[in-house]
């Protein structure tokens, strides 16, 4: 049984990736999860500099989901390379570094610095965080901005470049196309949906940032639809995510068109979810006589329903 998948020049030994922003820098989980057993670990979004993020409250629970507005708190790229990357290397993790800038030059600088670091497998461009005012999503909500940031980073690195797309646009497939034209090796989607929760007793928003990003099982059908639409629009691989909570969900994304998947919120609930997901994928492949997991990608059958006349 072959669980490997390809993301551009990068081969993952299985399609499961810990989602950025949901797994710290990976090292937090090193004693609980065999990091080498994951397809990859996407670490928390990094700027050039340290950031403290928003004041609490930073999350609020919603039906089958949660909102977050962390504000990209982070230790900055230099400290990441010095303090976290050595342990990730020692644990033999495949590391995808999520990077975020306020200007094009910052993305380029981050890509340069990380291209020289040992143990970075790919760059995920965060152009979709809904929780910070400056940078990031201003690129991700403009077709030209998406094209410009991807092509600028493309020019300075040989690492696979994977822009992470926002769902908070009318037509996400056009952004996937812009990323492909700019030379992206793959796209990842979706980031969270911009949302809001109000405490009706106090009439105050429940997050300090007023609005935040919705994740969790509640968003899964929308995310699956977006992956499906992007699969029709581009030929580069898609890393799919949005509310995956078990193996069936992961397989659903792959059938919709994702070559690999990221899992975030569900690993908050169950940090030991990874071997369960792998076992579930294996048993699905057995039941359906699928020898290579990559053969599932984009196999959704939208032809005439056989149960109808």
């Amino acid at each position, binding site marked *: 049984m072959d669980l490997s998948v390809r993301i551009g020049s990068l081969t993952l030994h299985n399609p499961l990736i810990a989602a950025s922003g949901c*797994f710290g820098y990976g090292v*937090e989980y090193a004693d609980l999860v065999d990091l080498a057993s994951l397809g990859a670990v996407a670490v928390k979004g990094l700027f050039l500099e340290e950031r403290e993020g928003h004041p609490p409250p*930073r999350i609020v629970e919603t039906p089958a989901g949660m909102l977050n507005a962390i504000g990209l708190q982070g230790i900055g790229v230099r400290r990441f390379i010095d303090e976290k990357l050595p342990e990730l290397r020692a644990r033999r993790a495949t590391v995808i570094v999520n990077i975020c800038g306020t200007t094009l030059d910052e993305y380029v600088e981050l890509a340069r610095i990380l291209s020289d670091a040992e143990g970075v497998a790919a760059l995920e461009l965060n152009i979709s965080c809904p929780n910070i005012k400056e940078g990031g999503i201003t690129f991700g909500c403009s077709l030209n901005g998406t094209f410009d940031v991807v092509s600028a980073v493309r020019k300075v690195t040989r690492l696979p470049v994977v822009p992470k797309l926002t769902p908070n646009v009318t037509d996400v497939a056009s952004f996937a196309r812009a990323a492909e034209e700019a030379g992206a090796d793959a796209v990842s989607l979706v980031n969270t949906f911009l949302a809001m929760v109000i405490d009706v007793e106090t009439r105050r928003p429940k997050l300090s940032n007023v609005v935040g990003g919705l994740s969790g099982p509640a968003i899964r059908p929308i995310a699956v639809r977006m992956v499906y639409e992007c699969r029709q629009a581009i030929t580069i691989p898609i890393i799919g995510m949005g509310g995956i909570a078990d193996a069936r969900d992961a397989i659903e994304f792959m059938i919709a068109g994702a070559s690999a998947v990221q899992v975030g919120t569900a690993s908050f609930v169950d940090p030991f979810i990874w071997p369960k997901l792998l076992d579930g994928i294996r048993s699905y492949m057995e039941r359906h006589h699928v020898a290579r997991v990559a053969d599932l990608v984009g196999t959704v059958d939208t032809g005439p329903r056989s149960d109808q006349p």
Partner: protein
Amino acid sequence: MPPVDVAAEVTSNQPLSADYNVLRLAAPTIAAAAAPGQFVMVKAGLGHDPLLRRPFSVFEVLRDARGAPKGISILNKRIGASTELLYAARPGQRLGCLGPLGQPFVPVDPPAEAWMVAGGVGLAPFAALAESLGGRGVRATLFYGARRAAELFYLDFFRDLGVELVLTTEDGTAGERGRITAPLERALASRATVSPGTPGAPPMMYVCGPEAMMAASAKLAMRYHAPCFVSMERTMGCGLGGCYSCVVAVRGADDRVHHVRSCLAGPVMAGDQIVWDS
């Protein structure tokens, strides 16, 4: 020990009031490893709604007839979907319980004294701490404030351990009327003239309760030069450092304010380290 996730059987659910209950869970591995002040992440129901686990201090470590750890209890207060389910949990039901997590209280030994300061559901870490202090022969006092007499729980438990009780209620139905920080300040003031390390000197303070009460207690501790640890309560997503939800503002060695994750750096933190007015 790294935390473990167990499907813990509810062995009893003891209602304490219309809002509070004590849930006892069979979890020997967690019970054996837990230190006072640590917490567990409990999944209140099956399925996706409610989705996240909620953090609870280990209230008591439960032991069998021979003294071997067999489980833990948690002190629950109904405030939302998960705590509502936990209030209604039935014996025999199984709940996902991940732990033990976080930094425990730093214990003291005689001749140092320990003062526990609890507000409302902030009593949660102190049953286990009182037992541990009793085992060390430490003289302990519990300053415990609640809204009304009917919301002061487990008083006999603490009395049986030899813990001295100082009680306040907001409506005056038990103990002194008002806030717990009033008798706390008088007690600290009465010790202020005694030099540290001698009998009667400022005690070690352990504080858990509403944020304003913890801030006031920590400031009193600083004013009277008492060492003070607080157990911070923040909304947590994972309890493991993954989500960065539960941050507390602290002043770093560089004198700048940093956000640290209370699941990893806490929940027990030094009271003088926290930027209370942030």
